[in-house]
């Protein structure tokens, strides 16, 4: 991934500078297909993408992440997943950790889908630690059957 270098001297305010930086990051993440779908070792959460005529289904393995700690945002054809996985039990207070394989921390991933999403019909469900996003394509992009009329 390219490094992000920006000169903020022209920015009039810090919030604007941050908004601009966040846009850049967002764009890079979304455009970087290698990062999104291949060679994904070390990336959390792992996702799968299924496609049908009417839309996409994106699933993500997020064990132990409460729904309130998952943020899903959609903008055009870009879906962003972010949040935090908290591991509540820490050492101390009479608790000893013998093995710690489960990772905690923040996560953020953006995906650019090949087609725009119908925002009003998009749906997110969370079950058994798996997040499922139902992302119907915009109505204009869905295949339609045109009846042939006889004059």
């Amino acid at each position, binding site marked *: 991934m390219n490094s992000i270098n920006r000169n903020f001297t022209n920015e009039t305010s810090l919030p604007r500078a941050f908004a601009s930086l966040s846009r850049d990051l967002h764009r890079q993440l979304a455009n970087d297909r290698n990062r999104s*779908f291949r060679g994904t070792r070390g990336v*959390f959460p*792992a996702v*799968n993408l299924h496609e049908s005529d009417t839309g996409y289904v994106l699933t993500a393995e997020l064990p*132990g992440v409460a729904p309130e700690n998952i943020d899903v945002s959609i903008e055009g054809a870009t879906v962003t997943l972010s949040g935090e996985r908290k591991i509540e039990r820490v050492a101390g207070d009479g608790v000893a950790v013998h093995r710690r394989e489960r990772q905690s921390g923040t996560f953020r991933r953006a995906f650019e889908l090949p087609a725009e999403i119908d925002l009003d019909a998009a749906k997110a469900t969370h079950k058994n630690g798996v997040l499922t996003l139902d992302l119907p394509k915009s109505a204009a992009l869905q295949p339609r059957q045109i009846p042939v009329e006889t004059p």
Partner: protein
Amino acid sequence: MTYPTHREIEAREKDALVTEDTRPGLVFRPDVDILEEPDAYVIMADLPGTNESDVEIQLDKGVLTLDAVAPDETSSPARYAEYRVGGYHREFRISEDIDRASVTAKMRHGVLELRLPKSAESRPRRISVEAA
């Protein structure tokens, strides 16, 4: 410019177990945390996609065996795939001081929490000193 950042997750790919099983399908080795509280051992295991009813736990001859199956709920093949769906298997050697009758297990958001209370004899005890 530096930011006060949270640590970002560095997840590992699910480890597929190579077994001489006769069962079809993939089996993964789940990530676990093993903790010890004053009166119990606690095992937390990541089993994404698994229902409570799909988890089987056995304690036999000092070995605790965890088996689970995550049902594949997708109807079409994935266009992109980063993870695969299958079963989970892992074994733990458990110390002798477990009160086997009071082992409990619960599932929440795809994480299994196993509580293995220590037997009464092995719990830390406070002995008060009496004045003679």
